[in-house]
Structures are given as C-alpha cells and as structure tokens.
C-alpha cells in the first residue's frame, strides 16, 4: 500500500455524476452554502498566502539572519540556558512584525528550512510534543509568570530556571505587544471593515500580551503565538496542537451565548488559523474528537469546523487526527470522510479505545491518558508532556540478521525452537546493543535547554525544573521500530521452507539473501509462498500478534532511566523504508526494494486487497505501542469519495482492534511514477471492473488506460 507522504492529492472538485449518492460532497456542499462568505474570504487569504509564500520565506530567512547577527554582535555569553533566553529575546525584539491584508489571526512563523547559517549555539529540543494549551490559555502570560515568581530563589538551578522562565515569558509578551502596536499603527489609516479588523487585533493582542484570553478570538490568537514561540525555540518539527476543539470550546460557547460571536465568524477564524499554520514547520498535528471531562463523547461544533476547514483548504499544514470512538457521531464521521475524500491522506483515524489503553499501560495516569493528543503523525501522548516521540529508532530486521549470522550452523528441533532462540537473541541484542544507544540519545536530549517549552508543559513551573531536567510531569522516550512486516514474512519463510517442507536450510536462505537471491530456484520458492502477512491467514496473523506482544514486553522490561517512560511505536519515517542499500531479506525482498512501513504488510504481489491487509494488521498488539501502529491504505478516487465505504473500513478495522488508519488516493502522478519505476511502486493497487490489481503487473496498454481514467475521471 501507498504511504501518505508520497501520495499527492486527487483533485477535490470531481464529483461523481450521480451527485445525490455522493454523500460526502453533499455534506460538504451544504456546509459551503451556509458559510459561503467565510469560504470566499478564506480563499482569498489562501491565494495570497500561496502567491507570496516563496517571497515571504526569503524575507523571513533574511530577518532571521539579522536576529542572529544581533545575537552574535552582543557576543552573548553564558550557559546554554542563558543563550537560549537571549536568543528568544532577540527574536521577540527583532523579528519583523507583519500584518497582511485581510488577516485576522496574526503572527509570522518561520520554520528555518533554507536558512544559510546554523544557529550559533546548540539546537534546542527535538519538537514532537504538545504544549498544555489549556493551562496556557487559562493562566495567560501573567498567570505563568506568577507561577515562575513563586519558585524559590535557592541560589542554584531552580533560581536560574526561574530567571529563565521569566525572561522568555517577558520576551513572549514583548513579541505579542509589538503586534498590538503594529495593528494600532495600521489602523490610523484604515477605514470601514478594515479599521474594525485592525482595532480588533490591536485590542486582542494588547490584552493577551499579559492577561489570560477572555474570548474565542483571543484564545485562538494566543494559541498561534504560543506555537510560534515553541517552534522558534525548538527548531524542529511536529510541534502539535493537541485537542484544540476541547480547549477552545469554553471560549466559543461563552462567546456564542453572549452574542459576541456567530458560527460563521468562528468558522472563518478557524480557516484563518489553518492558513497561518502553513507558515510553520511539518506535522503540526491537531487532534479532534474523543471524550470530554466526564468521559462522554466530546465532539462539538469546533470539531466539525476544523475538519471542514482543513478539507476545504487542503493545504500542507496543519495535520489532522481524529479520535474515533464506538459512539462517534455521524456529523463527525461525515466531516472526517469529507476530508478523506480530498485525497491527501488526512485525517489520520485513531482508535480511541486502543490509544487510551496503550498510554495507561505505559504508566500514564488515567485522566491524562484519556485526554491524550496526537503528536506529529501517529504518536499518542499526554498533552503537556515532554514527549520526544521520535527519540530512538531501530530496524527490527537488524536483530534478525544478527541472530542468523550467529546461528548459521545451529540445529533447531522445530520452528518453535527457532523462534524461541530468536527471541532470546533479540532480548540480548536489545539490552546490549540498543539500550546503550538509547541512553546516549537520552543524555543528548537532556543536555539541551528549553525554558519556553517548560512554561507550556505540565510540571516545570511547579517543580522549577526544565523539561530536560525531568521537570515535566511526563517525560517520554519514543522508540520507532521499523519493519514488523518484513520480520514476520522472513520468519514465515523459515517456518515453511526449512521446518515444514524441509526444502532448504537456514544457512542456504541466509546465503541466498546475502547474494541478493541470485539463486533463482530458491527465490521462486520464497515468492511462491501463500499466506504471507497481510493475506489475513491465521499463521502469519498469529505470528505478527506474537511478535508484537514480545517486542512490546521486551521494551517494557528494559527501563531507560527513572522518570522516563519508554513508549514504543511500530514505524519509522517513510524515508527509511526506501533504504537503497539495505541488504536483501529472507522474505525474498531484494536489496533496493522497499522495507515494510508501519504495520503494513510487505509491498509484494502477495499482498492481498485492503480489507484482508487490514484484518491482518489489526492483530498487531497496538495497546503496547502508544507511539503508533500506522496502517496506510490507498484507494482509487471513487472509493475515496464514498463516505460510507471509508467509514466502514475505519470502523470495521477499529472493531477488530486496529490502532491507526490513513487513507489516501491514487493519483495520476503516482501512476506515472509507477510506470517509470515499477519496482519502487509494487504497492500501488488499482481496481479494474471491480478487480483489485497491482498496478505494475498490468500491461502497458492497461496502465495507460488507467492513467487516463485517473486523470480524466473516466
């Protein structure tokens, strides 16, 4: 199956001829009609954003260079913490303040890509966390400062941190105040609607520069400012928003009740907010849906607004994740399906039951687990925790190669004995090879300093410790584990060919793989195996279940350090499945071919259709892997736009225990790429006359014909 990251979008406009049955578009259209004005205004902002994007980036880069210069000029000295504070101060004072035409949510973010010069001191944290926005909004800058001021002056690290917290909060305040001033300046020459808009910005910014926000607009604006500062400090991606539809809800409800706000205005601001996020870094995940404080279904109008805003805009940011519950509402699922129909692989669907359980099993308190948000792409985390969800990583198959190399002439009575021996070997490999590497990585993380993040996490302002001093209520160490699909199939190959059919030996298999399967006869035997992982066959399904349980257990048994929760996930970044030089693997994957992604089956012709693949991957023990068990599906446009079909896939998968599902479209470009490089695209599936078929196995004429269909819709 295709992964989301490299699938471009299918044009959203194409609607099937019988509009009446195309329910997602009907839903979206009804919405579009109701909020026509908001959409029109947002479209203009989007167009302006897109047309000036490149230029803005350049200007921002130059502005940031000036911040650096200023920073270096002063020959700022001191420890890392002081440097970090000074840098944020320079940013707050120097970085240009720009309010563009028609903007209602303001604040310029710059995500460092393309910068000519590295930061003049070590980077800060690695991103991949969710601030506790609820607290930030409730306290406002003043409240956060008050907490910092309450810290004791102990003459030691707490006092130093106290000073740092106050410095960055003051810097934050300065930055916001500059927006109030700029809006005030612009308003002097503005008229009519524009004048009202600028005065609004001026008043809101000058209020939240100190006080906790009182209105929906102010709250939304403060969330964005906070994001800018977190990204500026982090210089890393996946700074995520958490449950925005929950923490903004009280403000929204209060404003609506007081008549200060109407639905369309709220929706418009959300559209503006989403457009703003496009100035930020990758994977700014927004989590929607899930339970409220009482444990009931917490979906609300904001949930729907965000989904439909994202579906309509279809821009590179933010990312969207939806928490699907057994009692998820129809509006919620319909809005999610409307976004899926766009074809960009959003939203990511999450099985609430499994994710909550996974965090509880890792040692997160019940209430925090239930209130989880998604970090980055797939990673469940308490909000306001120092999550580090991509702290460590390894390729599962490495452990298997290691085991094979050590046991080439060992005799095993049967497959069970072989599997048992591999498990023992893995445990030792994990303990002696991987753990030291993780410890090193943790030490590196802990050497950094993130005072602003500390102000936004739970516990740092209370404990007086920085996130890197384990000051946060939760410190996670996310572990990304690649290649369960390859491992299952490799073990299955050994089981079948060596122990059951006795047609070869482990050594022969190992040698054949080392020679990249020049041994054609053996290669064909492997490729001819039925029942590989993803075909929903009990043997491989059970093996996947057993292995995932075993890996989860091993990770749990090996503590990294007191106060740090190791949270595993079965994925690594997409790029890592394209490892050109990764040697051939026993499942008949030659060097250069893709590794398996997430919990997906290997991309081989034996992979069956989506439904079967999902039923296989649902057997993975997701509750042991809070950092994620992503399953990727790509569907032809017609299925993608069929809301009930998409919902059926999601809900059935979750009934069966699946963790996550991303559904994207097969677009013409992917098909073209598959025609050029068939080997890299063995996973692209298409439907012809109802038959699901691997695209690259079709004749040229058919491929061309399908390409035409994908392009023209017929």
């Amino acid at each position, binding site marked *: 199956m295709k992964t989301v990251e490299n699938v471009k979008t299918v044009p959203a406009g194409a609607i099937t*001829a*019988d509009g009446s049955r195309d329910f997602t578009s009907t839903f979206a259209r009804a919405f579009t009609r109701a909020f026509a004005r908001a959409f029109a205004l947002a479209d203009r902002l989007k167009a302006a954003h897109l047309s000036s994007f490149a230029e803005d980036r350049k200007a921002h880069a130059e502005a940031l260079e000036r911040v650096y210069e200023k920073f270096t000029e002063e020959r700022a000295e001191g420890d890392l913490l002081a440097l970090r504070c000074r840098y944020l101060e320079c940013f707050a004072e120097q970085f240009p303040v720009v309010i563009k035409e028609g903007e209602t949510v303001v604040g310029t973010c710059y995500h460092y890509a393309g910068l000519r010069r590295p930061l003049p001191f070590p980077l800060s944290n690695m991103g991949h966390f969710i601030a506790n926005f609820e607290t930030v909004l409730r306290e406002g800058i003043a409240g956060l400062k008050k907490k910092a001021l309450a810290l004791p002056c102990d003459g030691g690290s707490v006092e130093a941190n106290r000073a740092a917290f106050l410095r960055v909060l003051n810097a934050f305040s300065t930055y916001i105040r500059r927006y109030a001033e700029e809006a005030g300046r612009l308003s002097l020459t503005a008229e009519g609607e524009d004048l009202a808009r600028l005065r609004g910005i001026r008043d809101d910014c000058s209020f939240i520069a100190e006080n906790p926000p009182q209105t929906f607009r102010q709250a939304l604006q403060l969330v964005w400012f906070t994001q800018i500062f977190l990204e500026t400090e982090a210089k890393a991606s996946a700074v995520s928003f958490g449950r925005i539809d929950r923490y903004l809800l009280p403000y929204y409800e209060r404003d609506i009740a007081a008549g200060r706000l109407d639905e369309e205005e709220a929706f418009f601001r959300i559209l503006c907010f989403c457009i703003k996020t496009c100035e930020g870094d990758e994977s700014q995940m927004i989590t929607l849906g899930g339970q409220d404080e009482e444990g009931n279904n917490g979906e609300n109008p904001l949930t729907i607004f965000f989904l439909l805003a994202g579906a309509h805009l279809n821009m590179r940011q933010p990312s969207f994740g939806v928490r699907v519950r057994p009692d998820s509402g129809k509006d919620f699922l319909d809005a999610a399906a409307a976004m899926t129909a766009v074809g960009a692989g959003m939203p990511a669907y999450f099985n609430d039951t499994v994710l909550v359980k996974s965090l509880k099993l890792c040692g997160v308190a019940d209430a925090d687990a239930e209130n989880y948000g998604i970090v980055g792409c797939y990673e469940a985390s308490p909000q306001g925790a120092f999550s580090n969800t991509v702290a460590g990583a390894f390729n599962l198959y490495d452990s298997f190669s290691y085991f094979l190399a050590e046991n080439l002439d060992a005799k095993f009575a049967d497959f069970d004995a072989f599997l048992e021996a591999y498990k023992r070997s893995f445990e030792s490999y994990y303990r002696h090879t991987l753990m030291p590497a993780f410890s090193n990585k943790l030490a590196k993380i802990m050497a950094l300093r993130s005072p602003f993040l500390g102000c936004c996490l739970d516990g740092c302002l209370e404990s007086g410790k920085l996130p890197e001093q384990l000051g946060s209520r939760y410190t996670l160490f996310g572990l990304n584990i690649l290649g369960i699909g390859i491992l299952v199939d490799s073990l299955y190959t050994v089981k079948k060919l060596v122990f059951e059919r006795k047609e070869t030996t482990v050594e022969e298999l190992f040698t054949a793989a080392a020679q990249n399967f020049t041994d054609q006869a053996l290669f*064909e035997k492997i*490729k001819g195996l039925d029942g590989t992982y993803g075909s929903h066959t009990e043997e491989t399904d059970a093996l996947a279940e057993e292995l995932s349980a075993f890996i989860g257990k091993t990770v749990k048994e090996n503590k990294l350090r007191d106060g740090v929760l190791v949270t595993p996930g079965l994925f690594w970044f997409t790029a890592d499945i394209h490892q050109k030089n990764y040697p051939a693997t026993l499942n008949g994957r030659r060097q250069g071919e893709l590794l398996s992604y997430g919990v997906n089956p290997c991309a081989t012709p034996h992979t069956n*259709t989506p*439904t079967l693949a999902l*039923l296989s991957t649902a057997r993975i023990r997701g509750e042991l892997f809070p950092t994620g068990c992503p399953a990727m599906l790509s569907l032809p446009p017609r299925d993608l736009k069929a809301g009930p079909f998409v919902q059926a896939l999601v809900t*059935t998968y979750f009934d069966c225990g699946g963790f996550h599902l991303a559904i994207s479209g097969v677009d013409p470009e992917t098909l073209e790429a598959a025609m050029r490089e068939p080997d890299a695209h063995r996973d692209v599936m298409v439907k012809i006359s109802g038959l699901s078929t691997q695209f*690259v196995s079709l004749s040229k004429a058919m491929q061309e014909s399908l390409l035409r269909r994908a392009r023209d819709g*017929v």
Partner: protein
Amino acid sequence: MRGRVFDVSHGTTKDGPGIRTTVFLKGCPLHCLWCHNPESQRREAEMLFFPDKCTACLRCVSLCPNGVQTFAEGRHIFRRPSCSLCGKCLSAGCGALKIAGKMRDVEEVLDEVLKDKPFYDRTGGGMTLSGGEPLFQKDFCLALLKAGKEAGLHTAVETAGAVKKEALAEILPYTDLFLYDYKETDPERHRLYTGWDNRTILENLCFLDGEGKPLILRCPIVPGYNDRPDHFAGIARTANRLKSLIRVEIEPYHALGEGKYAALGRERDDFRLPTGEYDPARWCREIGSQTDAEVTLA
C-alpha cells in the same frame, strides 16, 4: 464440489450492498463484442501472455517442460497449442504470464470469502458471484450460494440471464439479490452484439421479478453500439415494468480489457473502439427522465 474460478476480489463495492467479495466464475454463453473480461468467456483455463511486460529474462524458457516458451531472433514466441497449462512458468514471477481459471473447492472459496466477515457484518455486505456467467457452472454456483447462506452471508449473483429458467429457479432460494444485465433492447442487435437473442433473457427477468427477488438492472453502454434513444427508452420501459427493481446501473464502456484479447492469442471480433460521444452523465439523465426508477452510474 469444484468449479473453475478466475478471480476472487475482496473489498468490492460495486457488486451489491456493503463491502463484498466477488467470486468470478469462468465461462459464458454470450460473447459480447465489447467484453472487457475476455478471459472469462471460455470454460477452460487459459494462459494470458502480455508481450509488453516481457523483459526477455528467459526464465520461463527453462521452466517450461514442454518447450512452449521460446525465443526466436530476440522475440518471445509463445506456442499456445503445446501449452499444457501446468503453470510451471508462472514461478518466473514476471507479470507477463498469467493463467486465468483455477479449479477450486467450494469450501476453499468460501473460506477465502469468509475472511472478510467483519466487513460484511459492519456494512451489510457479502458474497457476489460473477463471471463470465456464474450459472454456466450451475452446480458449483448453487453449492457456493448454499454454503454462503449457511455461513450467514448476504449473496448476490450477477447474471446475463442467458440461461435456463430452471437454473435460476434452483439458485433462487439462496440468492438475496440479482444483478441482471440488460444489454440491448432490439432483438436483432442483441443477437449481433452478444450472439444471443434476448427473448429468454427477458423471460427470465420477468420470472425473477415475479418471484419478488430484489433486482438491479445493469446496462453496459457502448458508444456507437447501444447509446441510442430507442435503447434508452427500452431500458426505462423495462425498469418501469419491474416490481422488484432497486435501481438501474449504467456501466459505461471502458477500454481496459482491450489488451487481453491479444494476450489470450485471440483475434478481436469485429469491434470498433467507440469514438462517439462519451457522456455517461447524460445517458443517466436521459434514461432517468423516462422512469421513476433510480438510475446511477456503476
């Protein structure tokens, strides 16, 4: 009980309600000029060879015990008549060679279908038998349907209706839905396009309708052949007469099957690729305007 199956497709959504698995049975009494699954027509297994997918790796040459796969002057020559369909060359795994049609047990097929049970339960889906003409292997078809019903599945049969009424009567109790092909209104043209006259087909349709079986009428529309107002009117008239009709589905012609004729080593029947106006939405509207029945694009 064994029958010849040429594909089992999971996760289909076009062949009846919900998410389904469609089992394609080989063999068909008709041979529609525009058939896009020509490998479904003959009862016997057949080898498909796609020359454009052949990379001349020569693996099949050494794998074939019968000397069927040969090369002459760098060109791959597949000597079809000597092929015993043993399947040995398939392990070359090259994508240029495929055998359509495998004998399979009812139990084996049912197990395969039942794998997707959670999806059927969620969506009201089930198993659809298609072809070819599934009733061309009536006993196998019947046994599969019975087994499916016993396993609690929703069952659908896609038929062209060119079969004995008795055969339909026999499967009736085990079939929840018929997807019934309606290809051409004019009897003469029907014979010309499909090789059969449409009288039996229409009688059988009336018979099913009389039995109160839910029906979906499926109409392939091929520009230049049956995209005529009189046929559209005929579809609407038929739809108006049926009591158990759920809807009419229009299946616009697509050329995805064209390459398969050569792959099967067959001459294409005298069929001009449609060049006329291709406007499925208009076809739907035109038919829809003459009937109260729902008319949709398949």
